[in-house]
């Protein structure tokens, strides 16, 4: 910034001394925290080991009770431990077992509901700090799945009243977490679980609007596009939305995103989903034209090039009778050349696309694979433990080892040169036999 000096007011010696003390204090604090944590872990795991080591059936009821594996005390110990380390999935499991085996059998439905609500608060607190830990999400789902079927407060005796309330609340929770981080795939996946499990299901069209909102606020979001694709598929299959018209709207949305940011991968993947298997020639040609214009604006766009290759190959595959195959093939080859320049890290892949289906490549691949198999099986036979310990093995078989290695290397080299030759000789695409699309 212009002319601003904003220094840390460090007064030389004094500061350094302070920080050394501060470091020492910090270290001591950490040590004590560590000690406490280890003690707690020890305690809980001992209880776990007790119940797992001894098969429950070996002990009489009285002996089981004496050991207190399912006690309240154990439950509290797990609570403490999980608050410190919610990623310890063994302890989550143990907690669930305590609840099922020890606590629930002795509780009324109201008490069970209260316990589960407590666990929901516990997981909520944990999620605020660790929003991406699988085990917290699964525990939450488990709690909700175990809510007893009882009518709620204001529900005219609906037997799933409690469940309704809690599941509706879950939707609210998930929305809050998605507002905080719209790209958290755990939250999206949980959202799908909630939408499935809700006793009163939410309208799919409103879910579609939700994805629209999320995409409009930031379209660089795989999960939002993915959810959209799921909702749309469902609406189309149920006949609630006209598929053709809806697809046109989706194309429009995707075009806007594509042109705003051609580098965003999620947009291109969604576009590919809409195209699907490429049954409509008109749509394919139109989309190719649109992407072509974008490529002219952004000549280095890797995604444009790759999508064009993919869609042109779809044309070749599905509509070979009504297109000019030679031009299309020529285009693809040119694009693949450009792709190798723009995206050199994936050179080999573009080579492969270029000549997949070539008879020559197939043969070479076969050689490559067989030599590899032979190589491995030989070694499997030979490399039994006794033989290795035996010096004689080495003397006997050294030539075999060398020979195997040599053949493998030759095969690999052959493949590489043939790939290069095939690309320039345009064998694979020209005979139009495309496999491995």
């Amino acid at each position, binding site marked *: *910034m*212009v*002319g*601003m*000096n*904003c*220094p*840390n*007011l*460090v*007064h*030389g010696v004094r500061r350094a001394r302070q920080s050394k003390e501060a470091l020492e204090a910090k270290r001591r604090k950490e040590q004590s925290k560590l000690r406490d944590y280890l003690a707690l872990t020890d305690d809980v795991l001992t209880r776990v080991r007790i119940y797992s080591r001894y098969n429950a059936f070996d002990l009489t009821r009285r002996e089981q009770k004496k050991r207190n594996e399912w006690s309240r005390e154990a439950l509290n110990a797990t609570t403490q431990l999980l608050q410190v380390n919610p990623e310890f999935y063994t302890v989550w499991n143990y907690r669930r077992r305590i609840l099922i085996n020890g606590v629930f059998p002795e509780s009324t439905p109201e008490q069970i509901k209260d316990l589960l609500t407590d666990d929901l608060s516990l997981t909520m607190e944990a999620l605020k700090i660790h929003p991406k830990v699988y085990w917290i999400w699964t525990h939450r789902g488990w709690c909700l799945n175990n809510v007893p079927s009882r009518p709620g407060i204001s529900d005219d005796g609906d037997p799933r009243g409690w469940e309704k309330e809690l599941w509706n609340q879950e939707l609210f929770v998930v929305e809050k977490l998605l507002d905080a981080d719209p790209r958290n795939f755990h939250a999206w996946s949980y959202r799908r679980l909630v939408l499935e499990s809700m006793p009163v299901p939410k309208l799919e069209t409103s879910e579609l609007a939700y994805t629209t909102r999320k995409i*409009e*606020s*930031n*379209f660089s979001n795989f999960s939002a596009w993915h959810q959209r694709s799921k909702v749309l598929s469902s609406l189309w299959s149920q006949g609630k939305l006209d598929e053709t018209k809806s697809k046109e709207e989706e194309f429009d949305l995707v*075009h*806007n*995103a594509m*042109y*705003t*940011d*051609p580098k965003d991968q999620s947009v291109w993947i969604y576009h590919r989903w809409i195209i699907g298997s490429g049954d409509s020639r008109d749509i394919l040609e139109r989309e190719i034209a*649109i992407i072509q*214009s*974008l490529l002219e*604006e*952004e000549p280095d766009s890797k995604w444009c090039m790759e999508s064009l290759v993919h869609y042109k190959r779809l044309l070749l595959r599905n509509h070979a009778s009504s297109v000019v195959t030679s031009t299309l093939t020529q285009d693809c080859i040119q694009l693949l050349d450009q792709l190798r320049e723009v995206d050199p890290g994936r050179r080999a892949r573009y080579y492969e696309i270029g000549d997949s289906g070539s008879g020559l490549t197939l043969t070479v691949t076969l050689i490559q694979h067989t030599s590899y198999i032979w190589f491995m099986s030989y070694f499997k036979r030979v490399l039994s433990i006794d033989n290795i310990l035996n010096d004689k093995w080495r003397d006997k078989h050294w030539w075999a080892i060398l020979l195997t290695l040599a053949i493998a290397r030759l095969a690999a080299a052959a493949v590489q040169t043939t790939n290069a030759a095939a690309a320039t000789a345009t064998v694979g695409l020209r005979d139009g036999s495309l496999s491995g699309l």
Partner: protein
Amino acid sequence: MDNEGIFDVIVIGTGLTESITAAAFAKAGFKVAHLDENVYYGGDEASLSFEEYINWATHAKDSTQFSSISISSSDALPNSRQYSISLSPSVIPAAGPLISSLVASGVSRYGGFRLVEQVAVYSNHEVKTVPGSKEDIFKDKTISLLDKRRLMRFLVFASGDEDFEARTELEGAKADMPFVEFLKTTFSLDQEMAETIAYALSHCVSPSDKALSALRRLRRYLRSAGRYGHSPFLIGQYGSSGEIAQGFCRTAAVAGCVYILGKEISSITRNRNFDESHSTPTYTLTLSDFPETITCDLIVSSESRFPAGLLGNIGDILRIPSAFPAAGEEIPFTIARGVCIIDQPLSFVSSQESSSSEEGDSRPTLDTGILVFPPSSLSTGAASSAVTVLVVGEGTMSVPKGKWILYLSTSIDTAVSPEQLLKPYLDMTLSLYATSSSDTSIIPLFTSFYLQTTFSSSYTTSSTKSSRPDHSFGSSLPTILLSPAPPNSPLPDSGDAAAVNAEAVFWEAVKALKSIKASKKLQKTSKEQVPPTVVREEEELVEIESFWPPVVNEEDDEE
């Protein structure tokens, strides 16, 4: 009695720059007195209540700053006390020197700030909201796909980190090309898009504004977006720049600065016989209707407020050049301004845009926003400069509920009647009523027009390139520092310019004070030894190491 009236520095004028400087002096431990002949704070950037404004308009002295003031009527409006009309309205970029000073000095705790909601541009005979981010561009249905791509490409370029001069897009003489031309040729943008970027995003003033300076300004604004919200601009509540100046004065007063308002300076005497053995201060000032004289070693003043007629010897005056990059090589120095109070809301969203998403007739109403008219956009309007309309509503706490103030401003280079120039723009803005139920235009409750001249013609031209102050004296020490006036356009820059200039003046003053005291060879406590320094690691207790001392953390923490 002996120590009262003896100051290290006297600051004349409570404009924004001087108020920031006074607060910095006070917080650094100097003894400061701050004078203003007006009874209100803020000087030429003051915010006045309705009655104060009428008073100001009808009794405007022959100030060199304001002229051609006209008002529609002097009848009082209801709730007139709740108005806070800004004489030099401005907005603050969310990332910049003024915000940093506000936070570092603690003044930000005194008042609230509101985000400007929307920026719109008038082009092709209609008003359109201006997209400022990737999301805006994605959602905008009025921009074609290709235009979206080109606009995005330009914005990515404009917000990059590298120095613009090193970029290939600016090779050759492109840096000096007019910005609009540059956008059209280098980024293949059409006229409308180029004008939108130049006038509504980068806030250029005229078609001849150069590309490099416009790009640098645009980058500052782009970097402000998203800091406190979507928009890059904030506006201070209770009256923008006037209130902010008052906030700095309050901070200064808390730190010990003495305030004397409403008294003219009747004389400034230079004490001739200070030499090494005496501890006489440099200047003695007398004020009209004030019993005591006050003395100081250094005077800091704004150029426009300095009573130059009172002092014959100008040898010790140091004019601090503006440290803020100017908007262009030739800045018109006169601004035509208009103030208009209305009681119906405006909307920048055209009925076309809103009908697709909203039900009903009313469009989303605007509380605070900026509307830009590029040059030549109105057939009856100006061709050589853009007109900016700043709309402030009750959210800014400077109007009563249900009222809005429109501030119009434009740069002019020839003498024209401000009313004649701005009326067409005002009429066009008033036709943007929010509810389409009434087909008639909004009738304003009050309008006023005036011209404001920036008092910097004599030295901005000579000092835009140089960063060293213009030493217009021989070997004697500077004892009077004149701070540069802030540029009055573009709209978002005057606050930042004031903060930057205030800091430049502060450091010069510190240097000057040191020399003055050294030349007197006085034995004072170490508290007043104040060598300026940029080096941080000093062991002494009162080194002035930074413009603002560290803020003491208080209990309530808003930011």
